[in-house]
């Protein structure tokens, strides 16, 4: 039955397309009209993003903006060799390596938790999503109080018999930021997982239950299989948002954070202050190449995922 209606649809679609092709003159006019719809955005994006990007690329390749001598890859080598850049890149990498897997696993956990038949499900969803809506600037204050040297967090540790930690002035600082990152991002990922879980065909789950498969087996053999592409997708989205964690760090610790919290955006901000265009451009190009690689992986995943869903 389904197949039949589908066939009918396709036939109809082909017929319509034929009709449209007959009026190719009108079609051309339509295309022109649609280009007008596109014009404001396209010109804006060209002026504010694409054109300056080309200039950034050019600046990254010349030795200075005045003489404009071609400098091959000198600027890139210089940036890569820069101690501050290396520290920032390493810190960003370290942070992502810890925060991203946690963000994926915990949000999957939350989604599975809300999938159960517990009371007040929709309220819980609301509660888990609230942090996403609250501006970071509003809650940094309470985080500063909680993680103060003489604050509540250290009181809890003292109760457990652990000595006090100077949260913002030691290598533990990254932990605070990871907590803040998770607090802010788990709800978002959870929604993505919830949508994916709800699209798992019910009959497969029902058959599994009828055949008395254990919950664990259902999870491993059915759910994970269906969720695998979402897991990858959420991982990459979290990776991208982990690069944006500067905001939280800046609001919590100001311009000069503890060494382990010195991120790429700090590096950029400092370079902006000296307005070294070559350094800025080369750094921006390096980061955009890394991003393009990550986005490329994202795209391949999404394509495969899209096909999975249609089958």
């Amino acid at each position: 039955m389904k197949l039949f209606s589908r066939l009918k649809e396709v036939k109809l679609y082909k017929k319509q397309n034929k009709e449209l092709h007959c009026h190719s003159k009108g079609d051309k006019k339509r295309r022109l009209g649609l280009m007008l719809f596109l014009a404001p955005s396209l010109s804006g994006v060209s002026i504010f993003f694409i054109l300056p990007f080309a200039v950034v690329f050019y600046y990254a390749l010349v030795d200075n903006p005045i003489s404009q001598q071609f400098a091959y890859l000198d600027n890139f080598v210089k940036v890569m060799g820069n101690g501050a850049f290396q520290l920032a890149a390493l810190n960003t990498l370290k942070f992502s390596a810890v925060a991203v897997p946690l963000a994926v696993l915990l949000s999957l956990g939350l989604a599975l938790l809300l999938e159960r038949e517990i009371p007040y499900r929709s309220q819980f969803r609301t509660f888990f999503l609230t942090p996403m809506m609250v501006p970071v600037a509003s809650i940094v204050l309470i985080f500063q109080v909680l993680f103060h040297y003489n604050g509540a967090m250290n009181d809890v540790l003292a109760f457990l018999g652990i000595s006090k930690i100077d949260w913002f002035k030691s290598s533990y600082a990254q932990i605070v930021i990871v907590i803040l990152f998770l607090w802010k991002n788990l709800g978002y990922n959870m929604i993505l997982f919830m949508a994916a879980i709800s699209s798992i065909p019910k009959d497969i789950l029902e058959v599994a239950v009828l055949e008395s498969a254990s919950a664990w087996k259902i999870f491993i053999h059915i759910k994970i299989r269906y969720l695998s592409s979402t897991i990858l997708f959420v991982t990459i989205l979290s990776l991208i948002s982990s690069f944006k964690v500067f905001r939280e760090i800046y609001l919590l610790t100001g311009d000069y954070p503890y060494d382990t919290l010195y991120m790429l955006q700090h590096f950029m901000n400092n370079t902006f202050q000296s307005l070294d265009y070559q350094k800025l451009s080369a750094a921006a190009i390096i980061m955009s190449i890394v991003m393009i690689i990550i986005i490329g992986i994202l795209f391949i995943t999404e394509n495969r995922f899209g096909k999975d869903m249609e089958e």
Partner: protein
Amino acid sequence: MRKKRIKIYIATLVAAVIAILFLMPIVLTITNSFMSSSEISSNYGTVFATNEKGGKVYISNKVNLKFIPDMVSFSQYVTVLLKSPEYLLKFWNSVILVVPILIFQLVVASLTSYAFTRLRGRLKEMIFFTYIILMLMPYQVTLVPNYLVSSWLHILNTRWAIWLPGVFSPFAVYLLTKFMRRIPKGVIEAAQIDGAGEWQIFRKICMPLCKGALCSVAILVFIDYWNMVEQPLILLSDTEMHPLSIFLSKINSGEIGLAFAVATIYMVPCLLVFLYGEDYLVEGITYQGGIKG
């Protein structure tokens, strides 16, 4: 059966604990904003001071976290709202930075997404792909080109430097296009056969069908820019124009009570938006994740 019930109890308990942890920072901020200055200083002393380098130094040696104020006091709010105009000014800065971006980004994006949904062909695919790449770039990358253009156009250190890149930000385009693709082709083709022009189809058919989608996108754009930190830091060197988000992190010791009140005022618009638009938000995220796209 009984085992199942116990399991549900445990799951509920876990969910409740997590919910408390998630809500705690928000609730604490709000309750603390209703404490009088004397109560705040007796609880926290001077929590931190800003040193000359801009870093933060901790001073106080006792920090008592309190959930419920001894006496509900509106004194902080009175100070913020009536006595010290600088806070309201910063709040106004945030509003004035966000609202034009919100409105015009939606207008531009609706037009663009309509064109993207209707056009076919390689060129369109390439443009759309470029938009997505731009959307996913972090500020570390996009701020450099933004800074360059702003200096060419001599709009550095004016609000235009934030507004213009914001208006043309590809984010809303991406999301709305995903929504619009869901409009059944038949609806549009029927209008086309009836002789409707593109503008008419856009205004009379596409926009009314996208009302919900516009709400979702508006919410996501709003939180994004209300939270803005990186752009003003680089593009507005005049701190007078900085939004409340940056100003809040710079509030000095001794004013921590006020800071709680300001922080609460700052999150109120977001919480209101959330209260009215949670479903739209959820829908927006789902589309953004490409799961329904």
